[in-house]
């Protein structure tokens, strides 16, 4: 193969005569490989030491097979379902499931590896071979002929002269490329904010009253289909509660009841200040609160995480993602961290039946900034 050491090739008749050993020698010589040292591990076959070495390797493969079986058994039949700690035995069995499948699978892989390693150490002959390195690029002749062959093939195909074929082929490929590009680019061409008036737009939230329907404050009781409305006296001074919008038309609509609790822009923190707490209200939003009750969007104005770490004594709302802090004693103004805008305040009041209701939607978009938002 390598040009450095030209080997004399055997004739066809000689080749047919050659044994496997001869062929191997010829191959290595052709590849420029030279055996410097070669030694059998077990020159005398069938000794006691050889059999012991054999057993050692076999034991590891056996361990691997047995743990593989044990892994299968545990994986298929172990009682893996969660058991409450009150059932001590069941809980222990459940807790053992993960470590056991890990142990057996790991042992199975490890056993194969150790077995293979031991085999190479104990049985493969010691051998030292040297191969001549192939230096530099291809020869000047090789390179010149290759370039000539390629350009010759291009010229013989005649594509350079046939402009009709060239143009139609270009048209076909271009149109196909355009079609492929339109799919991802089309979404960017469409205006995603053309809807700016319904509660599904970026400018509004689930609190927007539609068709003049009253929007109540609803709490999540752990049961997605239960409707539990909030009264002012439900929240203790220094307490806070996460509330979601509710309309009477949703009462028997299970899908809408679940969706209301899961909408990303819906969560609002209803905070009750302690009596005599000095509060600074935002200009133009002086009547958004109801007594000591203030309702702020739970969505951080930085990147939209839930800012619900409420410190009731310091009046700080912390955002867990980037450590923004909002001061509820001062219209939820940012005090620290990357957020720059206060949390939007939801105007609330109490209806004639004593339930808290939203007087309107937020007067600004909730959550992080987006392109069209000017403040």
């Amino acid at each position, binding site marked *: 193969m390598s040009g450095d050491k030209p080997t004399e090739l055997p004739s066809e008749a000689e080749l047919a005569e050659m044994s496997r050993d001869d062929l191997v020698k010829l191959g290595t010589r052709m590849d420029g490989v030279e055996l410097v040292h070669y030694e059998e591990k077990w020159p005398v076959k069938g000794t006691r030491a050889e059999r012991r070495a054999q057993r050692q390797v076999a034991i590891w493969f056996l361990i691997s097979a047995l743990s593989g079986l044990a892994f299968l058994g545990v994986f298929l039949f172990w009682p893996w379902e969660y058991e*409450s700690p009150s059932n001590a035995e069941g809980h222990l069995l459940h*807790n053992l*499931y*993960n*470590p056991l499948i*890990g142990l057996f699978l790991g042992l199975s892989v490890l056993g194969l590896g150790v077995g293979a390693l031991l085999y190479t150490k104990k049985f493969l002959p010691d051998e030292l071979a040297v191969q001549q390195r192939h230096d530099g690029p291809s020869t000047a002749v090789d390179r010149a002929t290759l370039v000539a062959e390629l350009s010759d093939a291009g010229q013989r195909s005649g594509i350079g002269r046939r402009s009709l074929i060239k143009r139609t082929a270009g048209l076909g490929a271009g149109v196909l490329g355009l079609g492929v590009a339109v799919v991802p680019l089309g979404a960017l061409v469409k205006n995603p904010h053309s809807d700016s008036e319904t509660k599904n737009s970026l400018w509004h939230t689930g609190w927007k009253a539609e068709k003049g329907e009253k929007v109540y404050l609803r709490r999540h009781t752990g049961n997605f289909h239960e409707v539990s409305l909030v009264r002012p*006296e439900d929240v203790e001074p*220094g307490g806070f509660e996460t509330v979601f919008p509710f309309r009477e038309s949703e009462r028997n609509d299970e899908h809408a009841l679940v969706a209301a609790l899961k909408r990303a822009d819906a969560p609002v923190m209803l905070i009750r200040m302690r009596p005599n707490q000095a509060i600074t209200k935002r200009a133009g939003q002086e009547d958004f609160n109801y007594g000591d009750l203030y309702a702020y969007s739970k969505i951080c104005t930085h990147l939209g995480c839930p800012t619900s770490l409420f*410190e009731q004594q310091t009046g700080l709302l912390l955002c867990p993602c980037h450590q923004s802090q909002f001061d509820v004693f001062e219209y939820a103004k940012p005090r620290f961290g990357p957020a720059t805008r206060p949390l939007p305040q939801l105007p609330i009041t109490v209806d004639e039946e004593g339930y808290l209701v939203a007087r309107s939607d937020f007067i600004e978009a909730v959550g992080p900034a987006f392109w069209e938002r000017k403040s």
Partner: protein
Amino acid sequence: MTTTTKRPRGARTKLRRRVAGLLALGFGLLSAGLLFTAFAPTAQTAQAQQQDALVRQGEQIYLNTCQSCHGRSLEGVESRGPSLVGVGDAAVYFQTSSGRMPMARQEAQAIRKPAKLSPEEINALMAYIDANGGAGPKKPSESGEALRGDNPARGGELFRLNCASCHNFTGRGGALSSGKFAPALDGVTEDQIYTAMLSGPQNMPKFGERQLTPEEKKDIIAYVKSVTDGNNNSGGNALGGFGPVSEGLIAFIVGIAALIGVTLWIGAKA
């Protein structure tokens, strides 16, 4: 037969009426007496006396351990301790049984330590604060396992909505601002979790009985108990229970180090 039985019947009914009347009178008197002893004011006076004694004992404890920061008559001391008027015995129970009060020193927040007051002293102190501080959230009459609800799944839903933002979704706790923190919930008793929700200790918001009903609170406790104290640990070291961050880091560092070690060892033996 009918004629012979007719005459004595009149005499017999008379006798019977008298005996019945006497019996009824006796029964009435007896039951009135029994009722009287059952609801007699004797029990009331005894209880009131006991209550008084408890309040007096509580006053002594208050004067010895609390008044330097909370004032002679629960009014609080500027920059030392808040007023205890209206805090209720739930707050007293939580703060003293968890060892947060009496405080060792003023710092970002009181920390949990072995309780300094005995359960009897805490009882007395609760009675004293209740008697002098006016109405506030009261510790529930149930205690211990009875405060665990039977629906930890709903408790988990409520915990993740109301508590997990600060305490982490399996109660591992987390950091707040300026050195304050939400503590981990391991080793916290049912009574302490319940009274903490009721009283809103330190910077924790209050969760009144109308916001989270007693049943909902008990479900939350059942959930907390099912995930804390090592109960949520599916084998091996939990590594703080913070999830993929610490697990991934340790798996990477330990795993890669082990692989490098084994590789070097194999190379050295070859």
